């Protein structure tokens, strides 16, 4: 196996260019470090490379639906039920080219290209709180987070300022306020639901979601305000939502300190037992299959939770026979995701005089209300929040009917009655036995081991789900909605489905039970930082990416100080 070694040494290497990698690149470069940014996928140039951004639905073959042949190549991505349409399929991997194994079903949804999932993320940007950071310790679950809200609050603010998050502050300790631009507007039915919820409950609130879409008058270089096209997943030519491509990577580039190399699959971090540090990384060029080694003083792992953990597990040495930094044996364990697609829907015949255009790229949010107090009485630990929206139905209201004919056809051109729907987003506990491992017998086309998943949701999540459905029904009923129906999409009750995979290289105080310390450094290899979802000690119920970004910015600050003081 010949690995050509390039002489040039960088100050830093970042693995991955998604939400966390973009942040690592920007912060490292802005702090003056010559940084090599490695991305396994293809180049995606902001604006130029969003091929479907301006297309109308009738311009897509099969009106956007993937053909049967296309689905064969994205069977696992297609489990989501929406990402493989012709509108967005190019942002998700070819499952035949990038296989993985399932001892138990795991929906591993990935985007291998510059920007990673930052292009397609749903942009919900929520802070975690001490209710989340203290929960493991209080309940004796997993290990204690080595940080508290105060350690990360300022970093959340820094991130929100840069990426631009719109939303409403509520003054809740369990969903901390943030640095927000003006919120998007709730529509009349959502406003009504909000007032009904406040009327019936003391600790429940409906607010517009906190979204990384630009509103207000703050200046974001090279980006414009959102004009409500709700086509974000295609890539926004205005840069009106946050992605690495529109925001962090251009910022890194502007410094002149970034060297970007796409088609570069990192497969190993090189460890030097003499210095007790990592010296660099090995890559395979995805196209030429050439192997190259790059060296740097500090390495940021941001390839997304599973991929980062895979790289660490592959990085074996005499010192670390079970993978880099895996003294605890926890690397690959405690795999978490959120569970969702359980809730309720309802309709109302009121508000018929209110039209609804329906392009707002944001949903409403009902923050967690369960187990806020220590003397909770629920049958489960932790809690969940709701995301949902109200809109007037369109022609699709007739899909599950047998109606036909001229009058029906003409009627379907008009807006139907209002419908409201919401889904819970529930916390999943960290279970040691939920894990990913490497399979060296089944390798991919680059000869690298594939990943095997062995994880499932358990009793706590099942009990929580029952409550989610019940409470959704109750709230809609109390608010006077009609045809209220609960749902629980059991076909999607599998880890990975919420695309919030995390936890496989957790942070903790003790090197014996965790992989990373409180600054996201590998306990035993202090010049390697892991700042993507792998670092999460518990999942909270909040969409997690804002936390990855804040932890990344904080970790870079730490790394640069350590480098200055020559500690690493």
């Amino acid at each position, binding site marked *: 196996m010949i690995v050509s070694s390039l002489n040039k040494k960088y100050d830093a290497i970042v693995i991955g260019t998604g939400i966390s990698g973009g942040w690592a690149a920007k912060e490292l470069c802005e702090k003056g470090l010559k940084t090599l940014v490695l991305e396994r996928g293809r180049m995606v140039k902001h604006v130029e490379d969003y091929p479907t951004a301006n297309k*109308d*639905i*009738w311009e897509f073959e*099969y*009106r956007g*639906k*993937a*053909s*049967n*042949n296309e689905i064969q190549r994205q069977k696992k991505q297609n489990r989501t039920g929406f990402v493989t349409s012709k509108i967005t399929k190019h942002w998700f991997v070819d499952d035949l080219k990038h296989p993985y194994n399932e001892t138990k079903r795991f929906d591993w949804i990935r985007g291998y290209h510059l920007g990673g999932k930052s292009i397609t993320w749903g942009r919900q940007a929520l802070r975690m709180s001490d209710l989340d950071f203290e929960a493991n310790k209080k309940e004796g679950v997993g290990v204690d987070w080595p940080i508290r809200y105060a350690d990360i609050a300022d970093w959340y603010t820094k991130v929100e300022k840069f990426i631009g998050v719109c939303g409403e502050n509520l003054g809740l300790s369990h969903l901390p306020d943030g640095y927000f631009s003006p919120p998007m507007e709730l529509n009349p039915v959502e406003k009504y639901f909000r007032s009904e919820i406040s009327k019936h409950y003391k600790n429940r609130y409906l607010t517009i979601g906190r979204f990384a879409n630009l509103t207000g008058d703050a200046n974001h270089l090279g980006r414009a305000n959102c004009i409500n096209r709700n086509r974000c997943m295609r890539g926004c030519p205005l840069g009106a939502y946050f992605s690495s491509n529109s925001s962090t990577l251009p910022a890194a580039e502007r410094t002149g300190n970034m060297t970007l190399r796409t088609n570069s699959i990192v497969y190993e971090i090189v460890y030097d037992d003499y210095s007790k540090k990592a010296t660099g990384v090995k890559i395979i060029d995805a196209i030429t299959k050439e192997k190259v080694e790059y060296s740097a003083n500090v390495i940021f792992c941001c390839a997304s939770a599973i991929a980062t953990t895979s790289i660490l597990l592959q990085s074996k040495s005499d010192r670390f026979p079970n993978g880099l930094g895996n003294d605890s044996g926890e690397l690959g364990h405690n795999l978490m995701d959120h569970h969702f697609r359980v809730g309720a829907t309802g309709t109302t015949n009121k508000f018929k005089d209110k*039209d609804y*255009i329906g392009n707002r790229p944001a949903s409403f949010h009902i923050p967690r209300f369960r187990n806020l107090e220590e003397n909770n009485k629920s049958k489960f630990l932790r809690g969940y929040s709701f995301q949902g929206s109200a809109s007037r139905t*369109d*022609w699709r209201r*007739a*899909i*599950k*009917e*047998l*109606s*036909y*004919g*001229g*009058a029906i*056809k*003409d009627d*379907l*051109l*008009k*807006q139907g009655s209002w419908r409201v729907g919401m889904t819970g987003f529930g916390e999943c506990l960290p279970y040691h036995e939920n894990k990913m491992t490497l399979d060296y017998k089944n390798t991919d086309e680059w000869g690298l081991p594939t990943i095997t998943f062995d994880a499932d949701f358990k009793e706590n999540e099942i009990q929580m789900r029952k409550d989610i459905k019940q409470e959704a029904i109750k709230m809609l009923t109390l608010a006077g909605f009609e045809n209220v129906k609960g749902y629980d999409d059991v076909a999607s009750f599998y880890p990975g489905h919420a695309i919030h995979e995390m936890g496989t290289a957790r942070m903790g105080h003790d090197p014996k039970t965790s992989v990373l310390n409180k600054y996201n450094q590998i306990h035993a290899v202090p010049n390697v930082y892991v700042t993507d979802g792998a670092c999460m000690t518990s999942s909270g119920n909040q969409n997690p990416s804002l936390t990855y970004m804040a932890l990344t910015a904080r970790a870079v600050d730490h790394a640069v100080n350590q480098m200055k003081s020559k500690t690493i």
Partner: protein
Amino acid sequence: MDRRIAIKNILATLGLTVSTSTIIGFLESCSDNKVAEVSVFFDKTEIYLIDCLVDVFLPRTSIVGGKDLNLTQFVDKMCANVLTIQKQKEIKLGLNEFLKKFEQKFNKEASEVSVDTCEILLDICLNISKEKEVEVFKLLESDYSSLSKHSKSKCLLYRFLTTVREFSFLGYFTSEIIIKTEKSLLS
């Protein structure tokens, strides 16, 4: 050429900016024979049946109908390329169930199917009570292999009808002309 007048009138009243080539495109595709020539999934007899169904599902009113938008070809293409092999088989079997019904009811050959006869048959199959409608969708979601012989043929029949109906609706309501019509109705 009353179709051309219908389209032109509608476009004019809506003040839409649809290119001339688009209108010509619609018109070119309005010939019944052409549909049969280019179909890929359905054969000649079958495509004629689909054409009739599209016309009954989405007839022309003061607003263009399904045939004006060449939806027969669209339905054919969707069945050929978007449906799984299993669903494709079910569609063909379901179509035969429909034709069987037609032959029984009218004592005619399948090739003699017409818009009028389709209308009569659809009235029997689709104009049913809400409860029965719910039952149909339940049947469509059930495990086919565990169904009785009678339920199997019913399931196939409705698989065929609901699929053609859904693709017709999809093609219609996501077409350029209809989306623009919808917008203008809103404003």
